[in-house]
């Protein structure tokens, strides 16, 4: 892979990361203070709904990172610049982790609210499939030993997965209306109080900064990796 990135530019990423890490920590501290202490408990669910401030941002950002992944795969097909494949590769494990966090916290939240760890709800099922799409992308890249080929092949899979997400969402929704009683769907669009919305938005910002920080660390490592690989081939 011929990356046209100088060592200076990599150093910039490292310097930016120092600021980003402190900013992330600060946002998380403020966000957790507001969401755990300041915001009012839900009048039905009590304090157990506070897991929402962890659950909802991770669910949002897991979808966001797959969009970034697919967008950079498309960008590779358009511009043929290998950096886009590295961007996709760097964001994949973070997105998979966010999906896993959303699934696990959702199931922990489900136990006191619904009485069960898991229901075959449309959104839960789609998230589970999204996790496996991430996994497929990561595993395909890892199982091809030639890095150049691996990057190009995985880009195709990233796009195929992205085309499939709306189809899977549509079919799972359709399947769900056949099989699922509508008991849970009333939770799907609750009007949210402003006192809960503000901590939620701060937490989302915190997650976003966290995602960017981790992403830049991973991207920098990947770029250095590719540069070392190129040197050792020469």
């Amino acid at each position: 892979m011929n990356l046209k990135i100088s060592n200076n530019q990599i150093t910039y990423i490292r310097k930016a990361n120092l600021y980003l890490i402190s900013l992330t920590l600060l946002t998380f501290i403020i966000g957790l203070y507001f969401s755990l202490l300041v915001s009012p408990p839900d009048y039905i669910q009590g304090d157990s709904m506070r897991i929402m401030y962890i659950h909802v941002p991770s669910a949002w950002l897991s979808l966001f990172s797959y969009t970034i992944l697919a967008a950079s795969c498309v960008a590779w097909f358009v511009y043929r610049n290998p950096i886009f494949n590295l961007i996709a590769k760097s964001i994949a494990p973070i997105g998979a982790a966010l999906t896993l966090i959303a699934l696990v916290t959702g199931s922990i939240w489900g136990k006191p609210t619904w009485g069960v760890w898991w229901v075959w709800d449309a959104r839960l099922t789609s998230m589970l499939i999204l996790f496996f799409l991430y996994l497929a992308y990561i595993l395909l890249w890892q199982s091809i030993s030639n890095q150049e080929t691996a990057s190009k092949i995985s880009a195709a899979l990233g796009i195929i997965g992205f085309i499939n997400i709306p189809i899977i969402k549509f079919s799972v929704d359709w399947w769900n209306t056949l099989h699922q009683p509508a008991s849970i769907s009333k939770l799907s669009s609750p009007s949210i109080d402003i006192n809960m919305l503000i901590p939620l938005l701060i937490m989302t910002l915190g997650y976003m900064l966290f995602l960017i920080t981790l992403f830049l660390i991973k991207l920098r490592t990947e770029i250095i990796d590719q540069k070392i690989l190129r040197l050792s081939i020469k």
Partner: protein
Amino acid sequence: MFLNLIMRDIKLAFFTSTSFLITASFFLLILILIPFIFGSEIGLLKVMFQGLIWIALVLSILLTLTRIFNSDYDDGNLDIIFRSGTSLELIICAKYIAYWITICMPLIVLVPFVAQAFNYSFVQAFPIVLNLLIGSFGMVFIATCVSALTLGAKRTTFLKGIIIIPLYVPFIIFGVDASSWPILIGLSLIAFVVSIYATIYSLRLYGE
């Protein structure tokens, strides 16, 4: 060339090895497991049969995937086919047809007869067979493109499963429902378009 390629793959599958018999008996044996798992109560068997034929089909496809490109890729035949001057699109279409005839067609032909054992009449079995017929084409398209994507990868049996099964979810959902065959046709057409581009792209990459 197109027909020759199809005939070659079919001959390889039907005459030079017993693999056609093996996949058919594998498919049957999975279905035979149904009464052992769920008991011989007729109402339950009918419901289970409808769903489990899809699992049997997915497993049969997964286990025979290496036949599409891998064996040709490993012994160099794929290179010769590429150099023949036939367009890649035609070659891939030939591969779809040959794979469908050798793997899916025998299974689908078997289904109406096996269905008798699960208390279906031929008329009742018809929608199931129709859905299998349409869905299996879509599944073959996806299987071919994933098989092309993983050509250069090592130890891919489970990897292919992990890539393919999430992509099969819509086919299974609409396949099990008897009345949604028009949606299955749509899905298969989308799969065809995506698959042919992805397959060409990855074959070019590995062919270099």
